[in-house]
């Protein structure tokens, strides 16, 4: 308790000193973070291999590249993001400065998750630094090696007081949550998310919660099912299914279920070989508890692909189950593992109802070739994000806000969104004491004339930019020009008694 309090106090003092505020400082820290990722890639890969058997290629692919991109974007755009943002004025404020000034919040608490220990702590950190905050980083204890490595590395590259790392388990997290932060950024499960929000309530601390859920994956019978299955297979079994936006289950019509199973089987062979246990590219479950949890979900069902496991390695083979009933345990909680259930639905409408009966997921995947049907499905459902004809890719575009809705979370981040989420958008109105006469209308004692003047001055918007006005303006301009030309012609004719065309007509006979 004492240590966490000390670290928070130090971070707060460092923040109050104002050194995190200048853009040069923030850029310097971001550059340092970039160097850390580049210089220590090998160490990070090793830590991840020990934590979760992450393959040497998955690490940059899944984590490091996105962190690097986020840092590069922040460095490039920081001046733009931090600049005041002017807004429209009304008649009353016409000679004033009206703008929104993004400002840092103070000390942010970032609680990371174990499935992507680096991306899920560092990408929020990039936004926190860019916004000028201090941050206490609490990586997940389940990814122990990564957590210890981060604790060792961060102080070597970043300001020690402003960005401390706190390691530890549930009790350390609880200690931290008792303290007062200016924002809490939490990535993890819904149950813990509720506890985080409840703790934040005590201090009225705003929170960003990146939670999970069961992300449905609908495969239409009239699409390129083979390609769909390739993409789904990749997204499902990468990181051994332990991804918050992994396609959790498949919805398809019974007529293509067999095909889907076969294509997945084919793809698995291509990706991981006949025995995925021997493939260097296939991961493991994080710990015994989760291994047991996932194995128990399979109880009572016979998989059509995979199903093998090895408790000593926490290995579960890529597994597919078909004809899964909607009320089975497999369909009750987020799987977060390499089990892929297929639930049959009679048509797209049935699939839409199925999705809407359940909690709002973090991601929705639709594989379909009919544009109209895709539009319908997007419009009749809701989710954190959507990728059509692929999985997880909406995560990779930093200009798209990444976050959940309902039980899958609140708030959003990536790119500028992280900066905005961890800033306070302060509304600023800079007036002068001149022109006091204009103000007199709003002071008491009041009468009707004064009231009318004030009402007019407060009317907004100043310039009507609706389509109707635009059309009116264009028509009026054309009419005006037409009238002007007519006037010119009349004048010319009137003064044109000596005009040559009249001569040629024989006017001057």
């Amino acid at each position, binding site marked *: 308790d004492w240590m966490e309090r000390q670290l928070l106090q130090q971070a707060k003092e460092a923040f109050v000193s104002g050194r995190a505020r200048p853009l040069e400082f923030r850029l310097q820290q971001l550059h340092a973070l970039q160097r850390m990722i580049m210089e220590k890639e090998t160490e990070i890969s090793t830590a991840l291999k020990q934590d979760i058997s992450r393959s040497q290629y998955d690490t940059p692919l899944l984590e490091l590249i996105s962190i690097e991109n986020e840092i590069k974007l922040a460095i490039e755009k920081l001046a733009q993001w931090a600049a005041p943002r002017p807004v429209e004025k009304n008649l009353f404020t016409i000679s004033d400065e009206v703008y929104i000034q993004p400002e840092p919040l103070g000390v942010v608490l970032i609680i990371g998750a174990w499935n992507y220990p680096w991306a899920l702590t560092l990408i929020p950190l990039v936004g926190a630094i860019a916004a000028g905050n201090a941050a206490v980083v609490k990586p997940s204890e389940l990814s122990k090696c990564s957590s210890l490595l981060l604790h060792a590395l961060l102080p070597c590259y970043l300001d020690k007081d402003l960005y401390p790392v706190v390691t530890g388990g549930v009790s350390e997290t609880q200690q931290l949550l008792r303290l007062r932060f200016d924002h809490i950024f939490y990535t993890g499960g819904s149950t813990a998310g509720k506890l985080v929000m*409840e703790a934040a309530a005590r201090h009225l601390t705003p929170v960003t919660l990146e939670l999970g859920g069961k992300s449905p994956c609908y495969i239409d019978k009239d699409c390129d099912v083979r390609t769909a299955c390739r993409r789904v297979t990749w997204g499902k079994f990468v990181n051994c299914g332990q991804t918050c936006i992994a396609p959790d289950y498949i919805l398809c019509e019974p007529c293509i279920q067999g095909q889907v199973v076969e294509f997945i089987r084919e793809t698995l062979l291509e990706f991981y070989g006949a025995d995925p246990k021997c493939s260097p590219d296939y991961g493991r479950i994080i710990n015994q508890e989760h291994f047991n949890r996932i194995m128990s979900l399979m109880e009572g069902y016979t998989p059509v692909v995979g199903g093998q496991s090895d408790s000593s390695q926490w290995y579960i083979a890529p597994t597919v189950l078909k004809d899964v009933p909607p009320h089975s345990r497999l369909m009750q909680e987020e799987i977060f593992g390499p089990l892929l259930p297929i639930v049959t639905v009679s048509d797209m409408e049935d699939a839409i109802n199925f999705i809407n009966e359940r909690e709002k997921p973090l991601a929705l995947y639709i594989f379909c070739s009919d544009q109209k049907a895709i539009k319908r499905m997007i419009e009749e459902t809701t989710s954190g994000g959507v990728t059509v004809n692929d999985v997880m890719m909406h995560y990779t575009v930093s200009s798209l806000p990444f976050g959940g809705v309902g039980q899958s979370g609140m708030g959003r981040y990536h790119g500028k969104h992280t900066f905005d989420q961890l800033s306070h958008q302060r509304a*600023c109105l*800079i007036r002068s004491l001149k022109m006091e006469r204009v103000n007199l209308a709003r002071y008491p004692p009041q009468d009707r004339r004064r009231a009318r003047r004030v009402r007019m001055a407060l009317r907004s918007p100043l310039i009507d930019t609706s389509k109707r006005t635009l059309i009116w303006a264009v028509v009026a301009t054309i009419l005006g020009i037409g009238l002007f030309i007519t006037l010119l012609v009349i004048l010319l004719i009137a003064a044109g008694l000596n005009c040559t065309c009249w001569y040629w007509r024989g006017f001057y006979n």
Partner: protein
Amino acid sequence: MDSHSQVLERLRTGFRSGITLPLEFRRTQLTKLLALVKDNEEQIVKALHQDLAKPKFESILSEVEIVTNDLHHAISNVATWIQPEYVPKNLATKLDDCFVRREPLGVVLIIGPWNYPLQLLILPLVGAIAAGNCAVIKPSEVSSATDCLVAELIPKYLSQDCYAVVRGGAEETKALLQNRFDHIFYTGSQAVARSVVQAASVHLTPVTLELGGKCPCFIYGRINIQAAAHRLVWAKYFNAGQSCVAPDYVLCTKATRDALVPALTTVLEEFYGKEPQKSPDLSRIVSARHFTRLMKLLEKTKGKVVIGGQSDEHDKYIAPTVLVDVEEDDVLMGEEIFGPILPILTVEELEKSIELVNRKEKPLALYVFSDESSVVKTTMENTSSGGFCSNDGIVHMTLPGLPFGGVGASGWGSYHGRWGFETFSHRRACMLRGWALERLNGLRYPPYSDDKLKWLRWTTSANSTCSLM
């Protein structure tokens, strides 16, 4: 009278039917809301007068006009707001459709306070309707006449399948909060806000909190004291000081104070005459409870009353009061005053004033009166607050382009204009890919290799602008 769960069921069914989604429906409801305000202006003014003795001018300006403006703004702009927002992409996704869709959240709860009972209830509702949600509206029972009026008028104008008014006191509100909403919008005090967030955390419901705080008012440097006094008095005693963004206390030097007090006296007489209690332009305290609270503050303060100080319990009237020689630890500096009492603290240096303010919670608004732009700049850069306004008070919240909200203890989230629409929307990231370029996808599939990695790094870089494309 329907029970809470019946009301919620009705609204959920209404939302699920999809009726609130089309643009036409939203615009129609907003237009009806506009008609509600326009047709019933007289009754609104009457109800507000009954609750707070609010002068007609204040009612029109701060309740009717501001709501009408925001409604016009929403009606003209909602079509633009609901358009999908296309975003820049990287090379790997150049051929894809990437956009952000604004979607409604579902059934939202709006809890209003008693000080601007119409504005602070309807302005969030405008955002909720524009965003396509259904809403449960809970007006404050303390402003009982407005509570009654709102409950009577809303069902007459708005669709009863989508919007419902629920009345009641603290107990009923607590019971209402046990239910599950898709967003809770609360305006009020910090104490209640904590229990709102706790109730929301059970269902993981996002919240917007519009709270208050002590809004400091710095007066330093060269200053046109007459103009400053006019604006300060107007902002402070509007609604008898019962505004969440009213300047709560003044910080200035001794010399400024000595010039300010006579200026304040002159202006107060100009505004409210020699006997403010007789002026039709001054409001009253909303309830006996708040009257007693304010009188206790006046009793316990160690400051010296230099203007006003009179009161009339029967009328719930407190004269516009100014005190000097108030210290930082005075009882008047302990809580948000929310009344027509203005303490002046004398601090010689601007830096020390800034430090004093930074020792306290972040306020909802911060004011600086000065003719020197360096004073304004220094104060702005070294403090934090929901909003900032120099050389005036309150008016920054009349601009629909500016987000209105607090930070830290003064609140969480914002609204007004487009910000209200965004508050009640979910920004859904959508990416539509094609079937082609599966070979490009191959870069990310196992079995992995160094080569694949190099290509991948390049195509997913945010800056990759390839001349081929």
